């Protein structure tokens, strides 16, 4: 049997500041947004920072965030959209510089799991986009990077070997079975880190334009069991650590599913961790 003991897993959710998680019971009644992280860290040891996709991170805000979490806590930060979705030809290098500066407190404090480069659905494997991605990865070199493709043209061994050569993590995604979307794989391209993102399988809501519909999905136990097995057998033996994130945030489904996956990986079987109780892996 493959050795999984050496791999450290970080399991959490994509973002943590959702008012509706109070209704679903994850956060205690009356939790103020400013206290959600304090509450979140009692259960999970990692989170993805979504807001860095909308806004260039600022070092003082990152510093304040570092102070709020324990030493073992890690952040995965999304690369800002000005380098993925709204790239301006002559400006993006400056944006990379600003992003590095903003991330500095996380790096210094050892709280950065990786930078998540989430590419848009229209970012297909064309010459222009390939050149841009190569230039972007060069510009970001030195940082721990994970690349998430949303277009199936990138599901190619050549792409995986190039990522492996650069020691960059390919993000394995779980999303609906729709034409054009990146397929459900379990590939490790970086021996330091593998990465899985669970977006939910809501095929109907996926292209609705509304996040509340797109990410409204509750994983069934069989689906999570299948993933637990895959993580144990195919991913954990290949990397020193793994980041696993649930993005199906609607109605508190993300923390619920994340906790269940932790239970399954710990082989607790039918024994469930309390809904918002502490969970360690």
């Amino acid at each position, binding site marked *: 049997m493959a050795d999984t003991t050496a791999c450290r897993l970080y399991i959490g959710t994509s*973002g943590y*500041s*959702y*008012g*509706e998680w109070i*209704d679903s019971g994850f956060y205690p009644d009356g939790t*103020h*947004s*400013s*206290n959600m992280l304090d509450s979140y860290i009692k259960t999970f040891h990692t989170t993805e920072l*979504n*807001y860095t996709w*909308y*806004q260039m991170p600022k070092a*003082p*805000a990152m510093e*304040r965030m570092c102070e709020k979490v324990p030493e073992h806590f890690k952040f995965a930060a999304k690369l800002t959209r000005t380098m993925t979705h709204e790239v301006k030809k002559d400006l993006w290098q400056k944006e990379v510089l600003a992003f590095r500066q903003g991330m500095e407190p996380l790096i210094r404090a050892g709280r950065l799991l990786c930078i998540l480069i989430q590419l848009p659905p229209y970012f297909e494997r064309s010459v222009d986009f390939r050149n841009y991605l190569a230039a972007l990865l060069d510009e970001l070199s030195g940082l721990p990077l994970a690349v998430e493709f949303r277009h199936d043209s990138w599901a190619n061994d050549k792409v995986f070997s190039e990522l492996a050569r650069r020691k960059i993590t390919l993000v394995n995604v779980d999303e609906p079975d729709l034409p054009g979307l990146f397929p459900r794989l379990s590939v490790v391209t970086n021996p330091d880190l593998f990465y899985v993102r669970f977006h939910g399988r809501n095929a109907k809501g996926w292209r609705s334009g*509304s*996040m*509340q519909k797109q990410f409204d999905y509750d994983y069934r136990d069989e689906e999570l069991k299948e993933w637990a097995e895959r993580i144990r057998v195919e991913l954990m033996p290949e990397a020193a650590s793994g980041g696993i994130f649930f993005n199906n945030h609607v109605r508190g489904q993300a923390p619920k599913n994340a906790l269940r996956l932790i239970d399954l990986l710990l082989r607790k079987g039918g024994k469930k961790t309390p809904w918002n109780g502490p969970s360690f892996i």
Partner: protein
Amino acid sequence: MERAIIHLNIADFAVAVETNRAPSLKGRPLIIAPEGAPRAVVYDMSDEAYKEGVRKGIPLSRARRLNQKIPILAPSFNRYEQAMKDLLKETFAFTPLIEYGQADGHIFMDVSASKRLFGPSVDVAFRLKKTFKKAFNLDPIWSVATSKLVAKVATRLVKPLGEYIVAPGDEEAFLAPLPLSLIPGLEKPDLKRLKEFNLFFVSEARGLTLEQLKIPFLQRAPLIYDRIRGIDPSPVRAFSETTSTLSADHEFSNDTNTAGSLRSALYLMIEQICRVLRTRNLHGGCTKLILSYSDGVQNTSASRLSPSTSNDMAMFKACALLLDKAWTRRVRIRHMRLICEKFCPPMVQTELFTPETKETRQVALIQAMDKIRNRFGKHAIKAGLTLTENRIAS
């Protein structure tokens, strides 16, 4: 309940609208001002003109002296209003709690209650920004915060383009390093006084206690104390509150052409409207009076209230002239309707030492009457002028 406020701001709104029509003017210095008018002032200018020293409200002649080559366009208010209406239409899809300036590209939205329906406020702001750009080629700055004050400061920081998300709980830290001049609500005299104490930044002014602030700032001290801490509980006024008109009607029991009865009825209607305005902390900017004669003919007259007011007596003074203007026939009057519109917030700035005048006494009297009515009912106290109508009606 914790609030999520979005501020969308299209910098140099009039210029943005005009350059959409004439793209060749984009990226160049441009002034919007009524060129032919005597003593014309600058209504708006492009960022490029700003960099050359042109400012809103300065005399056009002075702006011209700065650079004679800057093209000048006459303002087209209808166009700006229409553009604003188009933008607002998109925002209504997310919340009815929308407050906006008068065709100036500023929109505040309270999306606290619509997160479950539309997702995180940050995403709503981003989607609106994309929609504005795609549908109208207008690119707003946007910010998300827990109050209007913090959201507004945030957009000021990234002007003319960009976004700023101030996380809940981060308000004090966000404001701390900023110059005091960036804080909305601090007026020029406040800043001047703070400067005299060598206080230039928010973090410096925060060192003063409320009691210490009261010494130079008297009644304004609590406001200043709150503002520099990012405390701003003022609500985003619902769309209906900012745009709707207020109206009052009076049907005469017997058709009349007695001046006393008409003036009395007019005063009663004004009292009704002004009371609502005061409750909403608004001033009326325009009034319209419609007289319906017993033969079915209607006469209308309207005028601007300058200055805008929610004071019964000041509004009556203006409306009495309207009555004279509309009352042009000998035929008896059956019905009067008074409409008040163009609401705006009252001027916050007051003098430190206000001498007692007729106006200040009137304000005090109205405040006292409001207090009595709040406690004992609206008929507990009446203005003498309205007794005439009551006598006739009874």
